């Protein structure tokens, strides 16, 4: 019993730690601004440099206890405070840290500043597992950001903050702003009558079931050959090849049914049986609730006259 509990605890513990690690491993450094004169302000009305993190999971992740640093030899430079509910990032959401070297100003103010050429590292709560890193280019100018082309993945590019596509600066929001589902727009444009979808989808459905069909055709052949080999061995015969094995396969469902019916007739079996004949193990666990003796009443003693 203790062994089972220990095993269960180990499995639960492993699963929990694995899921935690999996969640945090999907965090990404997403956008960085070094010299901020016109971009967002903090709660104090200042324009500090900022670092944006993105949760690429489809579930919330709490980043408390994780580390941000600019020095790989000092991974625990800034610890993201624990005890603040705001450290939980919603699914596919962003959070911005102000790199102003003023950690006393709140949870999202780091203990370091950043400058061009530096590398920013994001470490897990153990201070050992590196989750993401980015090196800020030397040529980045004031009010320009260094951002991923897509949230959570894609290349890093300098954004100048112009109105051109994918050049705007987006602290705390998606790096690409979409006003429609591009997949549906593509289908509307390229596949007006649905032929492409039909061809692709039917090919996928057919190939999935065809693979399954071939697989079970093979498994069936192998299975029946193995069972016949075993059968022949148990009868003391030595099969020469699988072909000879296949030839002995005669037990069709109809034959089995005919044998059963013949036995039925032979033993003069009746349609209505008082008991069930089964090959399953019948187990009746004892319980005082089902015990016969509790259902029996004692015969009342006959009164005797004195």
């Amino acid at each position, binding site marked *: 019993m203790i062994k089972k509990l220990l095993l269960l605890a180990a499995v639960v513990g492993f699963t929990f730690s694995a899921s935690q690690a999996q969640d945090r491993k999907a965090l990404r450094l997403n956008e960085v601004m070094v010299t901020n004169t016109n971009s967002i302000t903090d709660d104090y009305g200042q324009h500090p440099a900022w670092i944006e993190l993105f949760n690429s999971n489809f579930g919330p992740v709490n980043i408390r206890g994780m580390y941000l640093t600019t020095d790989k030899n000092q991974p625990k430079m800034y610890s993201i405070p624990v005890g603040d509910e705001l450290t939980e990032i919603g699914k596919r959401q962003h959070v911005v840290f102000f790199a102003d070297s003023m950690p006393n100003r709140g949870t999202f103010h780091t203990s370091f500043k950043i400058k061009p050429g530096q590398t920013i590292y994001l470490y897990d709560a153990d201070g050992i597992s590196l989750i993401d890193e980015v090196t800020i280019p030397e040529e980045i100018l004031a009010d320009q950001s260094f951002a991923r082309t897509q949230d959570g993945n894609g290349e890093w590019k300098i954004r100048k903050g112009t109105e051109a596509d994918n050049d705007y600066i987006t602290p705390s929001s998606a790096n690409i702003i979409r006003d429609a589902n591009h997949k549906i727009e593509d289908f*509307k444009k390229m596949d007006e009558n649905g032929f492409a979808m*039909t061809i*692709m*989808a039917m090919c*996928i*459905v057919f190939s999935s079931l065809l693979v*399954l069909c071939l697989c079970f055709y093979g498994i*069936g052949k192998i299975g029946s050959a193995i069972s016949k080999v075993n059968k022949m061995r148990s009868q003391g015969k030595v099969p020469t090849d699988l072909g000879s094995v296949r030839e002995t396969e005669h*037990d069709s469902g109809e034959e089995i049914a005919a044998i059963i019916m013949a036995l039925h007739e032979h033993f003069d079996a009746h349609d209505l049986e008082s008991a069930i004949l089964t090959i399953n193990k019948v187990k009746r666990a004892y319980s005082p609730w089902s015990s016969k003796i509790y259902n029996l009443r004692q015969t009342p003693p006959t009164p005797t006259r004195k």
Partner: protein
Amino acid sequence: MFSDFLLNNLRQFWELTGFANAEVGNFVMLAVGLFFIWLAIKKNFEPMLLVPIGFGILIGNVPFNTSAGLEVGIYEEGSVLNILYNGVSAGWYPPLIFLGIGAMTDFSALIANPKLMLIGAAAQFGIFGAYMVALAIGFEPDQAGAIAIIGGADGPTAIFLSSKLAPNLMGAIAVSAYSYMALVPVIQPPIMRLFTTKKERLIRMKPARAVSQNEKIIFPIVGMLLTCFVVPSALPLLGMLFFGNLLRECGVTTRLAKTASNALTDIVTILLGMTVGASTQASQFLTPQTIFIFFLGFMAFIIASSSGVLFVKIFNLVLPKDKKINPLIGNAGVSAVPMSARISNNLGLEYDPSNYLLMHAMGPNVAGVIGSAVAAGVLLGFLA
């Protein structure tokens, strides 16, 4: 003064009642609900589904003052009905139903004769045929995909997909899917007769070979891995379907399989049917789109049944003479289990009283369940 207070409160109470808030649409939907209940009880059309859906329609269409903040409506966040409806809107009831279906289904017929899987694949053409028609009518691709899945004849799959692609159409799609599933005995036989000759209807198929326990255990594991590697978006449905089947076949989890196939399925069916019914509020349901959805669902069923039968006819051209398939089992490629297999059997018996097609038809029938889940995964992958 006191009388004013009394009258004022009574007037306020009157404004909360269904009588004060009733509109024509509510009465129309109440009539639809009553019709469903009548169909289920008097005509025995899918009573397990139509009674909960029909009564759900009654629940969902009792009018009330939505601005009173009573938190009773299915679309009011935090209400009891809304909490129960989460299984539909978030799409977790359908996978639980699939778990039960897996635990109930014997895939032996399919394992014994794997080529029948292709009939289950061919019948999915109903989905994509309806998709093309839906696009032609003017639906958006995601809406068309959600509507077209009705052709898979699988209620849980239709609910699952529509909750992801077109949540606003889910009520109409679900009711349409279940209605046509109930009408399978009416829709399919004329199509089967139309596309087959008398000679074809008399084809006798060889009895299936016995399937070993090991094959039955391998099937859900390999089936899940193969299909889900191709279409991971169908993982919730296929994963649960094959998991339920493994519980059934492995022989060491009889209790779990029994629970999945009986108690759990019954509970989820009750909640699913009732909440789907309740989601068909008149304001959401009585729209011209609903009429189109019913029309497209009908089209999808016809195309699916026809393509299954026609595929068998084409397939027979390449099969050896002693391995021909009776095209009457082609209709069973839609996943209305076991209704469409029974129809194949009954129609076969009509033409040859000793030609039992039931077990042969169960092959494409359960393949249809897998096929429609794969098709749903494909649509989800392309359009979500």
